[in-house]
């Protein structure tokens, strides 16, 4: 399993850079991860990140955009504004979770 160093911390990642152990994540790490993809986190970003973390803790899976909108109450349009182009991937990346497995 590859590791990488972010803000002087060593974390386990997959080959696309997504954290593989959600327990290695904390909020300062999220800020650093966000900077790597050019995002400055605001209150709105944190709301989405916290929903994703809490939902993953309950269900063991990363929520899809639809779940974030239906269950988390954050409209998909907002997610595209907050995490431009690829919100599902970017949000999972910043939240230290596996990318939502493309449904089969």
């Amino acid at each position, binding site marked *: 399993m590859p590791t990488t160093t972010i803000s002087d911390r060593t974390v386990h990642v997959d080959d696309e850079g997504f954290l593989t152990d959600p327990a290695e994540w904390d909020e300062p790490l999220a800020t650093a991860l966000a900077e790597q993809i050019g995002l400055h986190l605001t209150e709105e970003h944190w709301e989405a990140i916290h929903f994703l973390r809490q939902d993953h803790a309950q269900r063991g899976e990363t929520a899809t955009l*639809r*779940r974030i909108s*239906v269950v988390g109450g954050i409209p*998909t349009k907002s997610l595209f504004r907050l995490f431009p182009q690829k919100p599902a991937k970017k949000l999972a990346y910043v939240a230290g979770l596996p990318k939502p497995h493309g*449904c089969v």
Partner: protein
Amino acid sequence: MRRLLILGGGTAGTMIANKLRRRLDRDDWSITVVDRDDEHHYQPGYLFIPFGGYAPDDLVRSRRRLLAAGVRLLLAEVDRVRPADNTVVLEDGRQIPYDFLVVATGTAPHPEETPGLLEAEWRRTIFDFYTLDGALALADALESLDHGRLVVHITEMPIKCPVAPLEFTFLADAWLRQRGLRDRVELVYVTPLDGAFTQPLASARLGAMLTDRKVLVEPDFIVERVDSDRRVLVAYDDREVPFDLLVTVPLNMGAAFVGRSGLGDELNYVPVDKHTLLSLDHDNIFAVGDANDIPTSKAGSVAHFAVEVFVDNFLEHSSGRPMTGAFDGHANCFVESGDDKALLIDFNYDTQPLPGKYPLPLLGPLSLLEETRANHLGKLAFRHLYWHVLLPGLPLPLPANMSLAGKKMPSEET
């Protein structure tokens, strides 16, 4: 008398009723199926209707006549399940108590969920082919298509039979070529996925087949709305795809009563244990087939393989013993590729589709991830097996769980 109640008389519900009727003593168990109508559709056949391949009569049978003697069929709409009372309430007010409940109400397209889809252009320049009337209407539209931009579009995953939009595209390409129109019609494939399919080897292979056929792929496209005046698909990231003829796969959702009953997730699918299909919340409710949330394809083959495992598990569970069977997410899908050829893919939760032979190593006769005429004939022959072997619950000599025999492992990790 113990009561097994099955909601939905489609592939999973019919197989379960017929198989369990043989295994459960008639003096001890009643089996009831509830469905809204008496029409069982062979849904894989819809794909061929736009190209003149089947007539409706080929694809529709009476549900009642497909159910074994000793299975009661109630024709009614389900209002809701009341799990605390072990009761299903029908829309006509009847209350049906159960000891065990199987939710097998599948998944269905919901065009009303995408703004702009059901407006003036619906069934004029916008079609779906996941309903019998949609497929029939599309046949007429294709007949009069002689130039322009034909866009095949998937709204959101998961969808029923995720290879069907690819098959439609391959068939449309071949059909247009045969009519000498291919140079006058631009074919575009618009998908929310980052490639042709979800699984790496199959996605590469199917993606190359789209490229070979000069199909333009628009990946990562999350549709926000359809502008029906301008005839464009608009994505959340403001990308636009214009169309002259749009063949869309609308958002798929489980039955509305699942949501009303508090049994479903955000798309009205019932969360279940992915190996036993037992509800995560209720010890006497199973969800089998497309109605559940297991991470594999929503497809008849999955329902079929899952039922094989479910039946033995149900006998154990209902007599208070631990369930010993574990479904592996096995899916087996024919992919029509045009010109009377098809591919076959075979995969499960852990193993992506690999090349090789199926069902017998070396002998086949079917080839995995490779276009052959034998695969196409296999797909066509399957309709007869479906009515006469699968639905009656007779044994088909295919193992329920996936086998690696005959498959070639990729030379490097993907």
